[in-house]
């Protein structure tokens, strides 16, 4: 068959499960050297692209071949990790592609910048493959710490400095929360291997210690997810950081939190449900409540935003709320559709950020009012932006609609039986109705309102390419969701065992 993972295994031997990360790590290490040697950002970007593509290649081979393997009891590669790795790779690819021509990214430290990007990606992928609390923690921290620096690395913008401070403080706080939770979990289960933890809990049942562990971890991961009330940093950081970085955070590091949630809680709860050692319904309710609050706050507050980056930040908070439905419903179908929504979200939200970044690069402001008459000045960009925003709002036949349809329907139905979460689906659907309002405001500014100038805009090629890619995916995934959805289904079943 075409997809044969034996290449990977033959090259990497026992390290095969983490092969995609290894490639990136190597890239991260050589990056500063390359920049030092060539002093050309293009070269760096080229190398980065090459590395990322190789890693994508490996991952695709393994994923399509259905490869499974584990390393040292710390990492285990399965369909789930494969899909999530693919997602992170997509994010890093787009980010690295556009960073080179963005006017906001650093000039002098470009090599470092790139290696930090790759390192952050590696951290995320660690979380995706981790089978042990330690690796999860390390992965998250790797991703977080690097992204603190990435945020700070914007040239000559006081807002970036401020954003970085906020980010690092709240990040550290949530790290502490996470670590505390992990420690309690360790104490409860007496081991750090997730599978063993699940097994242990499913025998000994619920305990308050576990409750504390869960809450603190929810808070910790909630920071990454930007779930209300742990979201407050997100708008400021997204606004302050360089737009490619904002996109990286909004589409990538947000997902890390979900991966961790799935990895730890889903596994535990499923095991617990299997042995009926304790009822997980209460936990599910907690997640349902958080989800409802998150999506509502995100959407409602987004309405009053005038800065488009902040608006997108709030909208991605809302999206996080949608995805949290998975944790509430906790069915295989829900997980699959949740992962699918993460994927489409990468391209919708990513695309929107890309457009913003491109326009900032050519000197158009971040205010929605700055977008007046854009349709005349850059028809393609305006149209792409419209598609991304409508996709986020869930207008058919775009990707956002299809994934939302899967996701919301999962809250209504689980093979043949109505679930008890219909009310959640109601809230979610009404929310996406509200969201249409502020997305439309941008579209209106671009198409309806008259701009003060009409001269054409030429955006950098890499931006154009990245936008085009996301555009294609948004359309294609909307019409042919199966391309990804099947993988997601496998992944879900892999996680559910």
């Amino acid at each position: 068959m075409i997809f044969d993972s034996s290449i990977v295994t033959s090259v990497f031997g026992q390290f095969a499960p983490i092969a995609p990360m290894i490639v990136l790590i190597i890239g991260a290490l050589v990056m500063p050297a390359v920049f030092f040697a060539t002093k050309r950002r293009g070269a760096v970007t080229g190398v980065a692209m090459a590395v990322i593509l190789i890693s994508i290649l490996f991952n695709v081979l393994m994923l399509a071949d259905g490869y499974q393997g584990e390393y040292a009891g710390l990492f285990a590669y399965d369909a789930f990790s494969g899909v999530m790795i693919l997602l992170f790779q997509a994010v890093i690819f787009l980010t690295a592609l556009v960073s080179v021509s963005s006017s906001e990214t650093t000039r002098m430290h470009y090599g470092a910048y790139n290696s930090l990007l790759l390192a952050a990606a590696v951290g995320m992928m660690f979380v995706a493959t981790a089978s042990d609390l330690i690796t999860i923690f390390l992965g998250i921290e790797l991703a977080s710490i690097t992204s603190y620096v990435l945020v700070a690395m914007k040239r000559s913008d006081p807002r970036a400095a401020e954003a970085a401070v906020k980010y690092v403080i709240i990040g550290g706080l949530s790290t502490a929360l996470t670590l505390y939770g992990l420690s309690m979990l360790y104490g409860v289960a007496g081991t750090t291997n997730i599978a063993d933890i699940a097994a242990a809990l499913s025998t000994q049942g619920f305990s308050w210690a576990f409750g504390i562990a869960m809450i603190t971890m929810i808070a910790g991961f909630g920071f990454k997810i930007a779930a209300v009330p742990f979201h407050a940093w997100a708008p400021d950081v997204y606004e302050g950081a360089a737009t490619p970085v904002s996109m990286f955070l909004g589409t990538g590091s947000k997902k890390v939190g979900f991966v961790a949630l799935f990895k730890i809680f889903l596994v535990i709860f499923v095991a617990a449900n299997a042995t009926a050692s304790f009822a997980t319904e209460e936990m599910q309710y907690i997640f349902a409540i958080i989800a409802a609050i998150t999506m509502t706050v995100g959407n409602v507050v987004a309405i009053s935003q005038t800065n488009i980056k902040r608006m997108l930040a709030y909208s991605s908070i809302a999206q996080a709320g949608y995805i949290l439905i998975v944790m509430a419903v906790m069915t295989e179908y829900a997980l699959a559709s949740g992962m699918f929504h993460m994927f489409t979200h990468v391209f919708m939200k990513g695309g929107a950020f890309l457009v913003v970044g491109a326009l900032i690069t050519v000197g158009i402001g971040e205010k929605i009012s700055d977008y007046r008459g854009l349709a005349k000045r850059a028809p393609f960009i305006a149209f792409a932006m419209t598609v991304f925003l409508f996709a986020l709002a869930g207008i058919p036949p775009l990707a956002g609609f299809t994934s939302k349809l899967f996701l919301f329907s999962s809250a209504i139905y689980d093979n043949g039986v109505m679930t008890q979460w219909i009310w959640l689906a109601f809230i979610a659907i009404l929310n996406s109705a509200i969201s249409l309002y502020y997305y439309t405001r941008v579209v209106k500014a671009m198409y309806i309102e008259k701009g003060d100038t009409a001269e054409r805009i030429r955006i950098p090629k890499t931006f154009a390419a990245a936008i085009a890619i996301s555009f294609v995916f948004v359309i294609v995934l909307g019409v042919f969701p199966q391309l990804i959805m099947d993988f997601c289904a496998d992944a879900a079943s892999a996680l559910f065992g």
Partner: protein
Amino acid sequence: MFFELPFEIPYLLTLLLVVPLVGAMATLAMGGERQKYAKYTAGVFSGITMVLSMVLLFTPDLSVYNESHTWIETAGLRMSYILTVDGLSILMVFLTGLLVFLSTVFSAREKDKPHYFFALLLAMEVGLMGVYTAADYFLFYIMWEVTLIPMYFLISWFGGPRRHYAAIKFFIYTHVASLVMLIGIFAIVFGAASGGVADFSFEAVLAGSAVFGSTFQILVFGLLFFGFAVKMPIVPFHTWLPDAHVEAPTAGSVLLAGVMLKMGSYGIIRVCLEVLPEGAQYWQPIMIFIGILAMIYGAYACIAQKDLKKMVAFSSISHMGMVMISIACLSSIGIQFAIFQMFAHGLISAVLFMVCGMAGHSIGTREIPLLGGIAGKMPVFAAFMMFGFMASLGLPGLVGFWAEFGIIFSFYDYAVSVDMIWLIALCLLSLLLTAGYYLWAMQRTLFGRLTNKIDLSHIHDVSRPEAIALGVICALIALYGLWPDLALSYIDGYASSLAASLGVI
């Protein structure tokens, strides 16, 4: 069938979607210097579509055009690409093809960004055709939403002074409704799912609908009904309509009133009645009530209007209320004439809105108090306007009358069965009111002393393209009025079978 085509066109229904889509793109390409060709491109493509839709009318067995391909099959879901045409949809398809073409002809004089304008019209057509031919809830919903966006842009680009407000209102309001409808669709699809597979196709849902309990039916009927009622629109969920109409460009209003509103009643018949008969039984009195409310409320609102177009908009609310009660009778006659009224009102409202549009752009105002004695200045315009108004107030011999006659008769049937014959008086009252506001409007605009409130020097009578478009529709109105069977014969079978499935004849 009065005349049968000897041949079949393969993939006809797909063509009905593809041709306008291609047309939209081609027209969009007609920017810049090529702008003057935009209308011809649009005309050609919409013309082809119309011809294709007319082919259906002369096809003895519509089932030969059914198309069915599995589309998405994953994680326990199956969406398919299924297109069908039956007695319910055939007239709507024809109407869509006809009105899009004619509104293209009508707006041939469009100067401002014509390529966008016509491209939007064609894009609309894609969605409308899709809604009326789709036989899969996924496809149906997609098409349902697809119609929104072109209309939003039509209003907010080519609309009147308050177009932003109107466009957003239309967009959000109807979108909320569609989302509520979506929940209902989820409910029926998943409720009907069997073997862990939720099949979105109409027939699968219909087959699975046997298991629905009555509480389920009543609740879900409510959801779906709200979704469709907003589109129809039914009092009190109608307020987006007058604003949208007043601001929309003429062609937009024509499609909005002529075809888009029908999506609501179409959905009620297609989804609510076919799938949820018990729910329909339960909701019957409520539907009757709001139907009558809409009829009379709409008619009264018309009397109070100052803007000609707004009056017409309210009149369509009143007429759709008629469709409502007719559907609510749940009888063979009721459904038959509900569909017929959808068709009839589609034709008539097209004339009315075209006339209002002309009043807007060739006289310069639609404000009734500013007009008067126009008939002397613009005899042809006056003739068309009078024809439209007469048709709309149900003058016998024109298509509107038969629809109203059948509807009220079916309602009389219902009224007798619940023995409240006096209810019929309300319908007759609304007929009287209808005549009242139309005649009063004509007296104040066409007749009486020639107005001196506006500058009449520049006004010109109907232009050729406008005359052609109007003439064709008026001819059809008269034709179907003299020979209603031309349309009724399509509906008959469907209506009686549906009524049978509802358990009432």
